[in-house]
């Protein structure tokens, strides 16, 4: 299967602006975009990107493929047209080629205190009902790959906006029945520009794990407006 890869290259130390490089390669039917990138790099080792697990669980290889933020390792070549255009995740500074600097995402993650706030734990486990545990489904699965955040124009232009993925993580901790940091977490959210989200749902479209950051943002807003956890 012949495919044409149009890949954005950029080395800030040398190049003034990014440029496109074209690779035409023969792909196997069952390849993913990551397989194709590896095949390209076998003959052009100057091309660079991040990859670790190869099967959609580590969140390293998020990039923009034909306009959609996706994980390269789980995007099948067969589902794409002949021309495949790959750019780094938009909205983050480029380090080189398809590698971006996610520092802002990671910094924002620490802002929401991504850990349980508790006092004295029981001797055995905390008792958490099935219903309480179900509240975490659709939240704890986030890999922090950056795909949703990178698709969010509010994140691009508003320096204080934490980003959809980070709000989803905030929601994961606020809804955990074991957490006792509710008031502190509310304070953090109040200062977070959460109201700047315009609900354009780019984040929902982008999430490779099918999670819904917008729903999490709405949930957090409800909490801020009306109090109560659920």
């Amino acid at each position, binding site marked *: 299967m012949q495919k044409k890869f149009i890949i954005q290259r950029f080395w800030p130390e040398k190049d003034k602006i990014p440029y496109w490089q074209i690779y035409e390669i023969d792909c196997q039917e069952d390849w993913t975009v990551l397989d194709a990138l590896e095949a390209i790099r076998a003959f052009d080792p*100057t091309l660079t990107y991040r990859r670790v697990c190869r099967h*959609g*669980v*580590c969140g390293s290889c998020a990039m923009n493929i034909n306009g959609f933020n996706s994980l390269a390792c789980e995007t099948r070549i067969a589902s794409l047209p002949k021309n495949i255009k790959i750019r780094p995740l938009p909205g983050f500074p480029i380090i080189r080629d398809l590698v971006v600097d996610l520092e802002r995402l990671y910094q924002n993650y620490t802002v929401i*205190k991504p850990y349980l706030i508790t006092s004295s*734990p029981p001797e055995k486990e905390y008792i958490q009902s099935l219903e309480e545990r179900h509240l975490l489904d659709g939240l704890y699965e986030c890999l922090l790959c950056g795909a949703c955040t990178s698709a969010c124009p509010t994140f691009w232009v508003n320096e204080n906006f934490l980003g959809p993925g980070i709000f989803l993580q905030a929601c994961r901790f606020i809804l955990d029945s074991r957490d006792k940091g509710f008031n502190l977490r509310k304070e953090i959210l109040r200062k977070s520009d959460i109201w700047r989200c315009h609900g354009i749902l780019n984040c929902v479209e982008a999430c490779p794990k099918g999670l819904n950051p917008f729903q999490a943002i709405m949930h957090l807003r409800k909490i801020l407006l009306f109090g109560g956890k659920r």
Partner: protein
Amino acid sequence: MNKHQHEILIIGAGIAGLSAALEACYGGEVAVISKVFPIRSHSVAAQGGTAAALGNMEEDHWEWHFYDTVKGSDFLGDQDAQAIFCYDAIKMAYYLEHLGVPFSRNENGKILQRYFGGHYSQFGQGPPVRRACVAADRIGQAMLHTLFGECLRRQIKFYNEFLVTHLLFHKDGCCGCIAWDLVKGEIHIFHAKLILLATGGYARLFQFSTNSAINTGDGLGMVLNAGLPLEDLEFIQFHPTGLYPWGFLMSEAVRGEGGYLLNQAGERFMERYAPAKMELAPRDVVARAIQMEIELSGNPYVYLDLRHLSEDFIQERLPQVKEMAFKFAGINIKKELIPVAPAAHYTMGGIPVNIDGEVLADGKKEAMPGLFAAGECACISIHGANRLGTNSTMECAVFGHRAGKKMASLVKKTNYLPLPKEQISLALEEINHLFVQPPKVSIAELRQQLQVSMMQNCGILRDQSRLKKQLIIIQDLKEVYKKIGLKGIPRTFNLAFEEVWELRNMLNIAEAVVISALAREESRGAHYRVDFPKRDDKNWLKHTLIWKKEDKLTLDYKPVVITQFPPSERFF
């Protein structure tokens, strides 16, 4: 040149490294160096569960877990370490739950536990017991993210995307390391009192593998180069069910929750190999059975069958498996069979350590001051010749924790040893040489030759002639490696540099693996010799040690610690 000084340095940020950091920080100042951003570490890929005899579903005891671990290890595990492990696992599961791991729950709101291969009651005599603590089928991600969050709370210093290239030794002990900042392409020198290696395993030596691209045994490579021993390298676990043709992990939980294995004729062939335990026999037994079926039929895979389970049940318990089968193979697991074949999954061997994680300079008793290891890169040995499913994530937590505690207790009594200038300049020369030499050889091609040949000649079924052949192949590949160069490739985020360095480690370890496997003329656990198909306790109930002496690999052996359960034949 960038220089840093930290009291305690942890290399690797998977479950073992982060667990150690969280304890070590009570005793001194800690920094963690990781080749990738911590939550990308391979621990994230663990699926089925983590072992602890909590007894949340039915009666269970740590002693039963202990027996299963001993038997699972084909009696090659050290029973002192195995007992500590099974006992501590219970406390550790609660500790992790208190930190916030989103475990699934049972009807009573306690941690949900499920069946897994090799987990039985009544010292192997009773029915299976649910011992694997579950977070759907994402236990690794749940644990890793939680531990990382806790490290952020404790404000532990991280050097992310730094590849450690050399360990530095003073005559009195380990005193630092050299690391390459992948993002900027710069060299950093780290000076430390105590160093812990938590760098993971080496299952990427094989073409068909469940492992992340980064599992290249970097820590083992450095230890071997430093002239320190490695232990039991020949024991490499092949997970029975890697998704064909990629090798992606299809969790053992699939069988734990009731999935069947079928051959091309639609027969539940495990009836013939392990009539009592069927699909839930330990991994070495199931992987070998599948390999035999594959060789008999000539078809490169068998099938996992989940069609008899309900849609809701699959969504609740195995959502990730369902997603992966669909995304990669286009398979609806409710309606279709999943093609699977054994894939290199876990490496039981590693850096010999004692129960507190101290690296053993002679492989037996004498600790190397300043150097520790934990997790898959270490060999304590609790897995012996074969690891039980769910014991690895728990091992990382339990022994990472113990090593961290030990370092915390030692750090204030330990002084900084002077850095060895000569070692540093030699190391820098080695790195710079790569950037001077033009790129004549394809890194990817060389790596593939290694991985394909290891799969063929040192895989599930081994024999003398194939192993000997492999040794020659590796020596040839090492010659080719010398021609690798990186001239003209930008230093900024130079992925090629990382790969070259990984390949260097892989070639060294592969040679040691093959030599260890060639010497062991018996079949035990994951090491199966077609030419010596029986276990031989008289001659081989001992651990292999291998190290580099004057550039040659030399073997030695040490006895297995047996405290409670003498070796008996394994029936499943």
